């Protein structure tokens, strides 16, 4: 099984060309924090920190990035208080009751506090915190956010669905292909200084290569050995853990934004507003998805993919080179996942776990649409994205993913073959 070792070596080497991220914080207790006005850093705000029960620890000012850090003498409860007189002009606390925050710091631990300010003018692009809008308008705004998010899920999930359709593999490591793309683009962008668009193109190519290597070095040899589907599922979980921690070690446990297109103000489009990058994200996703649809519908290889996904043996018997089709599916899946990862990183920052967090929503999307179908994955993912965002109308934003996962369970109960899947017996 030289291939496997080779796979591991290649995976590591793929990362080796980029510099290692800075080390994590040193030992000792500390308090980290950030002051932000409408999500943008607020420099020069004074924060007083004292130990609960009296004793003053110190006073710090936030830096240019809106962050402050103070070492505290030992474990215990500490209260951080912002000085309102040092706020930027026109800014006030989003929640007036939160000018003091108390946290418990454990031995050698660091805690993070956030003071959210607002100028009251800007409405921001995020799903939450828009209570001042009328409900229908807010619903429309969330619908738009949902479409943007759903398109990202769709881009990443098409590969997952086609891989399932053509090989039967439930690939738990697909989320890591998403993270991989986002992280590679971040490294090219902020470490090597490439413009994000160029970095994205390179990341998509590298993502495609990574997908192809996955198939050539690991999954094809395993299929040739006759490894069972459940064994392959467990192997994909192992691969997911391995890849996730390789990314963690080589990247970092912090979230980072791309250096380009960082802070943009939302533009108004009638009742709703969007930042330019969100609009571009929607347009680009749509273009890519239309491209994929055309490929599947019109091209020879696309037809072959659908044929293999529909009935592998029949496709093989009618002269389709199944191995080649599967390889193309993996390359396409890897490239699309990388692209989706960059888009996701653009809206939610790049994080070592981002793909893993997206994975269950991808599963929800493709199950809703019908496992193994390409168009089903598209439709299902879009619906899941919209549902996740719109659900913040009724539930707290922190619970929005619960809606997406519940849909997954409900669909499995009501119609396990999904919306577009053939109505077959599945158990």
């Amino acid at each position: 099984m030289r291939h496997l070792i080779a796979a591991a070596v290649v995976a590591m080497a793929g990362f080796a060309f980029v510099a290692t991220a800075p080390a994590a914080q040193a030992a000792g207790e500390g308090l980290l924090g950030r002051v932000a006005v409408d999500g943008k850093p607020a420099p020069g705000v004074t924060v007083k920190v004292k130990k609960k029960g009296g004793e003053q620890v110190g006073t710090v000012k936030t830096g240019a990035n809106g962050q402050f850090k103070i070492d505290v003498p030992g474990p215990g409860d500490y209260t951080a208080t912002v000085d309102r007189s040092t706020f930027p002009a026109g800014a006030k606390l989003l929640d007036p009751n939160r000018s003091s925050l108390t946290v418990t710091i454990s031995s050698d631990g660091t805690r993070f506090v956030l003071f959210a300010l607002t100028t009251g003018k800007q409405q921001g692009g995020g799903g939450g915190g828009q209570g001042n809008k009328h409900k229908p308008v807010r619903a429309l705004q969330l619908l738009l956010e949902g479409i943007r998010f759903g398109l990202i899920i769709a881009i990443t999930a098409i590969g997952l669905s086609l891989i399932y359709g053509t090989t039967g593999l439930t690939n738990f490591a697909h989320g890591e292909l998403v993270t991989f793309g986002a992280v590679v683009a971040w490294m090219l962008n902020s470490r090597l200084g490439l413009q994000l668009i160029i970095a994205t193109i390179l990341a998509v190519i590298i993502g495609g290569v990574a997908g192809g290597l996955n198939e050539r070095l690991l999954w094809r040899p395993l299929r040739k050995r006759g490894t069972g589907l459940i064994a392959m599922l467990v192997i994909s979980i192992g691969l997911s853990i391995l890849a996730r921690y390789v990314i963690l070690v080589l990247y970092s446990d912090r979230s980072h934004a791309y250096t380009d297109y960082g802070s943009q103000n939302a533009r108004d489009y009638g009742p709703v507003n969007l930042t330019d990058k969100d609009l571009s994200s929607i347009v680009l996703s749509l273009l890519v998805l239309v491209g994929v649809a055309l490929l599947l519908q019109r091209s020879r290889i696309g037809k072959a993919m659908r044929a293999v996904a529909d009935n592998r043996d029949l496709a093989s018997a009618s002269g389709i080179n199944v191995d080649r089709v599967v390889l193309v599916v993996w390359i396409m899946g890897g490239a699309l996942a990388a692209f989706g990862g960059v888009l996701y990183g653009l809206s939610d920052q790049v994080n070592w776990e981002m793909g893993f967090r997206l994975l269950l929503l991808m599963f929800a999307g493709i199950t809703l649409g019908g496992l193994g179908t390409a168009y089903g994955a598209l439709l299902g993912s879009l619906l899941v994205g919209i549902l996740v965002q719109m659900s913040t109308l009724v539930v707290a934003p922190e619970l929005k993913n619960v809606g997406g996962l519940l849909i997954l369970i409900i669909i499995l109960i009501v119609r396990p073959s999904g919306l577009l899947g053939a109505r077959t017996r599945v158990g």
Partner: protein
Amino acid sequence: MDFGSIITNGFHALVGLDAVYFALLAIGLNIHFGYTGLLNFGQVGFAAVGAYGVSISVTTFHLPFAVGILIGLLSGVALGLLLGLPTLRLRADYLAITTIAASEILRLCFRSVALSKWTGGSDGLNQFATAFTNLNPFPSDAKYGVGPFRFSAPDTWSLLVGWTLVGLCVLLVFLLMRSPWGRVLKAIREDEDAARSLGKNVYFYKMQALVLGGVIGSLAGIFDAVQSQSVQPDLYGTPVTFFAYAVLILGGAARVLGPVVGAMIFWFLLSVTETVLGQLVGNGYITFLTSSQAGQVRYMLVGLGLILLMVFRPQGIFGNRREIALDAR
């Protein structure tokens, strides 16, 4: 290199509290995956409802500790029924996705602000098991063990209770699996249709297996929460389930002692690699890693180990290759 600390740390991990926790989780999974062929990827959800069952009952509703434990176990039963009713008729990979989604839903709910009145939000709950520590018969001023291998009094008490629980669960599994009931489970794993054609109600057997394994998972969660006196929602993330699978496969699925041996070796290896890597980094032999990265490298090894085991020795240390449901769908 300080081999003394490598050996003492390794021994502590070999029989430590984590080994107990994962042994119990994996014994539950063994009933699901090893004997019945059910792919439950939400085992940590069972642990979470157990842990929260006891902590919420005691902290929020001021019920007696024993009642809390009962509620924790019953929550496991309830979750098993809730998950099993709709999904056990489905294919194996569907069950996998549903259970993993359910465990994530539970974690997200437990850490939500909306429920923090009861659950303590992302900080969780603590100090709900003083009844357990009060039962500790060991005087707290001494350490217990042999030679350099010593544990503090609370740990000794927890380990005693923990390994007793593991022993009881192993005995239960041993007795069940040589009973006719256990043979039906294995028959379902081997060929569901054949079992059905012999007049067995496959669905009910699967349900019983899911609930039983789930309750043992809840017991694991209860034990872990009680001995550490705290629950915290992010301790119940999906990686715990994956590690429990690694433990099970390492020891050997469908073997009574597989999960126990697997848990001991798993934590022993993690501890040894951590100490060795930590020392290599600390003494400057390895310069391309920081000490926190060295801790993360261990988990890369877990992933790699899981892949290699599954490829080259899916039956683990003790297992019998023919007894593992790897081709089911």
